[in-house]
């Protein structure tokens, strides 16, 4: 019998719809959201599909409540998500911190549009990539993936759930209006070919369970509400039992370091990139998401024109693959970073590249980069 959750086959879908299908295929059974352009189609699809597969869709009163409800659902053991865009993402920052602190596995999709504020609701941008990492207060780490095709909207959404469950951390899918709204061919594999990772369960009886006691990988096994563990979770700094420790230097240091280190120390396992013709490249383009499509085309064209160009496409943008970028920087004379913002991830590239010159190719508004603009930027960088 064909699975209702996994629509195996070849489809022609928009990025938003492919994302919803990826979520259902990954086992997502709770969606809490609020309508917002250009992410609304994800909510619409989820409201129909989740009922078909016995899940829960709820449209909350705002994005603050949406993420709070998603954390609640996650704590009952459900795979849960929300989807939004800039203004809603801003409202979610408070509970992103709560999800980090209480180590709630969940997925947040941000179909980026032009900001600041209400900005350009129907236009693409990559203006929220720094907010994704730094938007909530305090020190923390999250994981963020950047799809560059509709197929990746499906595939990476599944990866987001798997990473969230593996590391007990909110994982973000940072797409943009173009990827969200454009339609392409999507291949949905049969269920048995889809890798699904579930959170680690406690192996101890309830009276010995310490909800925030990590294993060697720094990730604590997760008991869920209603399973008899009777544990407490709080946004306050807490010890391994979940008891508030609001004035302890030791507990604050231990907890904040672990929350960051469980991602930092596993960066090599988490990070995924695509390398194109970098082996002998003199100039590298570093791009992600929508900008990487023109970048790939630019690199291929540049090669034909005799420029030794290569592409490093980041699939994972947080944690930032500093070591990988540093290594690449050692072998090229210049790096070009096309971004649909006024210079965000380029700062991380500069930090990693050290003395190798890095130039930003900024784009704001409707148009994505054109390959010819990126080639011009490469020529300039090589001069």
């Amino acid at each position: 019998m064909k699975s209702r959750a996994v629509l195996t086959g070849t489809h022609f879908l928009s990025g938003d719809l492919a994302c919803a299908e990826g979520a259902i295929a990954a086992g997502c059974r709770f969606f809490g959201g609020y309508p917002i352009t250009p992410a609304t189609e994800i909510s619409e699809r989820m409201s129909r599909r989740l009922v078909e597969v016995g899940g829960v869709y709820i449209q909350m009163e705002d994005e603050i409540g949406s993420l709070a409800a998603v954390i609640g659902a996650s704590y009952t053991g459900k795979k849960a998500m929300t989807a939004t865009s800039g203004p809603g993402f801003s409202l979610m920052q408070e509970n992103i911190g709560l999800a980090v602190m209480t180590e709630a596995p969940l997925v947040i999709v941000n179909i980026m549009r032009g900001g600041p504020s209400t900005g350009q609701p129907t236009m693409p941008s990559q203006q929220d990539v720094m907010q994704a990492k730094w938007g909530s207060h305090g020190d923390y780490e999250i994981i963020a993936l950047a799809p560059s095709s509709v197929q990746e909207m499906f595939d990476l959404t599944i990866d987001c759930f798997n990473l969230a469950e593996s590391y007990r951390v909110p994982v973000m899918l940072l797409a943009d209006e173009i990827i969200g709204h454009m339609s392409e061919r999507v291949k949905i594999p049969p269920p048995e070919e889809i890798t699904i990772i579930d959170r680690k369960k406690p192996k101890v009886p309830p009276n010995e369970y310490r909800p925030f006691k990590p294993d060697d990988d720094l990730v604590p096994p997760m008991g869920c509400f209603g399973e008899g563990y009777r544990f407490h979770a709080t946004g306050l700094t807490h010890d391994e039992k979940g008891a508030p420790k609001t004035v302890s230097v030791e507990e604050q240091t231990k907890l904040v370091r672990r929350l960051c280190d469980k991602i930092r120390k596993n960066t090599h396992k988490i990070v995924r990139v695509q390398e194109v013709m970098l082996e002998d490249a003199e100039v590298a383009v570093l791009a992600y998401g929508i900008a990487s499509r023109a970048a790939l085309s630019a690199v291929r064209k540049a090669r034909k024109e005799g420029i030794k160009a290569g592409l490093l496409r980041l699939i994972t943008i947080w944690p930032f693959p500093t070591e990988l970028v540093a290594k690449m920087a050692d072998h090229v004379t210049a790096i070009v970073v096309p971004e649909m913002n006024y210079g965000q991830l380029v700062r991380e590239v500069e930090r990693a590249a050290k003395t190798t010159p890095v130039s930003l190719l900024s784009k704001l508004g409707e148009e994505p980069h054109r390959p010819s603009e990126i080639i011009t930027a490469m020529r300039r960088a090589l001069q």
Partner: protein
Amino acid sequence: MNQGDRMTQHPLAKYLRSERMPHIWCEGCGNGVLLSSFLTALDELKVDLDKIVVVSGIGCIGRAAGYVNVDSFHTTHGRAIAFATGVKLANPDLQVVVISGDGDLFAIGGNHFIHAARRNIDIKVICANNFNYGMTGGQYGPTTPLEAWTTTTPYGNIEHPFNLVHLAAASGAVYVARWTTLHVRRLKDSIKKSLQKEGFSFIEVISPCPTIFDRYNKRGTAVEVMKWFRLISNVKHGYDPARTEITNNQIIVGEFVDVERPSYGRLLREMTKRVQEKLKEEKAK
């Protein structure tokens, strides 16, 4: 348990995380009465402690979630109801209780309150109303009486307070009651009733704040405030919630709303069943 333990152990001890004691609440605070009423209700109903979740927000009473020996979650400020909504819908077998304060539930969390009541989410909300933000040292909030003195109304409060039971009733709560911390037995009975009723329940608990609000406003010691509660409380079951505004001379208490309306969860489950049956039929064709 030996004889000595039986003599010294609190009868509700098994419902508490004893290692978290002593609690943070001041002497004379009403939060202890609220919590013990809740625990007594659980005890009398023999609630399965593995199937109940207590959620709280930020503030003095927000620490209650950390003290009860059940699954519990201490959310960000104002978000307890939104979090509880996710828990209840994701696992309808759980009994979900929100215990929080007037500032948390009705200022920063006001939007979540009215919408959860409108949707008739099957959660029970118990609000400790002490008329101010106690934890931060006594600032005015959405229930502070007109003219009251707080640290941010140094010339007297010029904001009109919410009548919480009226707000809850108008928003769609199926069970609404108000008691003071003097009405221990009736409060416990109301909590029991709400736990046995499907839908969004709201119980307001008027609570003394002797260290801060009552001291600033010269209401006297905790005992004096309790005596004052006795003097001005008026039990009026079934009274129109619109007419229950708290004044300096009268606190109308009682059960104001007890109606039936299908909960969001029930409607969701019925819809899901309908949709899935239709899909099965279509497949069979």
